[in-house]
């Protein structure tokens, strides 16, 4: 390799020896993250499949159960995640342009928004606990089928909705918690000046993960909260 142009090139200390240049390393890392996200799509996809089948079978009971979710908090949380995706994109952009201070600000904002999402989720789950909508021995859903005040909701079907609700939003929240951990790490190293225009791969790939979790919620929100809201 002594005569190759790469050998004489002054290389970035972040360049690992099995890559020929930073661009190849960056593209390989990015491809790796995308392959992981492909597995995550199938992972959440399984739960979405189960949800869609039961919703098809027990639509009226699912509609009644869905109406007990707080649509305002759900919409606000969707907006919170969309804002956090913007701050992530702006953080990566700041790294591309070599602006350390800006990176730190946007990463900190992302963290705050992520924690806000989790806080609102906590509030929602607490109210579900108080209403006895958590599946288990104390489960009790009071209500009638939409448009039929004389027909009570089937307890088994309502419990099924909430099992799926907690499984899916719980798994999503776990991904958010992991994301908050990753971004705390990124915030620290960004503050130390580790991410430059030549090397900011951890920022980019963590951003991909965060956007993916946002997309999962973009589908969860209408499917769980907006089954049947017509008055």
């Amino acid at each position, binding site marked *: 390799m002594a005569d190759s142009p790469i050998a004489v090139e002054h290389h970035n200390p972040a360049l690992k020896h099995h890559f020929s240049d930073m*661009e190849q390393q*960056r*593209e390989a890392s*990015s*491809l790796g993250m*995308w*392959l992981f*996200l*492909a597995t995550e*799509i*199938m992972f959440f*996809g*399984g739960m*979405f*499949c189960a949800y*869609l*089948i039961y919703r*098809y*079978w027990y639509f009226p009971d699912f509609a009644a159960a869905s109406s007990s979710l707080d*649509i305002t908090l759900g*919409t606000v949380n*969707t*907006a919170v995640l*969309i*804002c956090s*995706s*913007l701050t*992530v*994109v*702006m953080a990566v*952009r700041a790294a*591309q*342009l070599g602006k350390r201070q800006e990176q730190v600000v946007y990463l900190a904002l992302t963290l705050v928004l992520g924690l806000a999402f989790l806080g609102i989720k906590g509030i929602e789950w607490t109210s579900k606990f108080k209403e006895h909508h958590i599946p288990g021995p104390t489960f009790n859903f009071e209500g009638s089928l939409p448009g039929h005040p004389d027909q009570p909701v089937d307890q088994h079907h309502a419990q099924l909705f909430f099992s799926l609700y907690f499984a899916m939003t719980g798994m999503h929240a776990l991904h958010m918690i992991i994301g908050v951990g990753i971004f705390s790490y990124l915030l620290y190293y960004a503050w130390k000046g580790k991410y430059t225009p030549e090397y900011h791969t951890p920022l*980019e790939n963590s*951003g*991909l993960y965060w*956007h*993916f979790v*946002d*997309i999962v919620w*973009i*589908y969860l*929100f*209408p*499917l769980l909260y*907006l*089954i*049947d*809201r*017509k*008055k």
Partner: protein
Amino acid sequence: MSEHVVSAKTNIAVWLTLLVLTGVTAGVAFIDLGPFNTVVALVIATLKALLVVLIFMHVKYTSEKLVKAVVLSAVFFLLLLLGLSLADYTTRLLM
């Protein structure tokens, strides 16, 4: 990932579009469209997801063709899972 830097203006335009689409989703839920409520909600959600994938996640700007192949493959397998499962369960005749 290409080194193409997305302009702040584009990022903000996408962000505002996503917020507006969220509001539309919530608003339309209160209008009676029968079975089309679900269709409209999912179409809007897919539009939002497309904006995030293409622009925020850079897929529109990448020079790495394999990334696009991986994304399309993942979506294909997801649709295969959902499509075949639903084709079975929704066409069963139950008592």
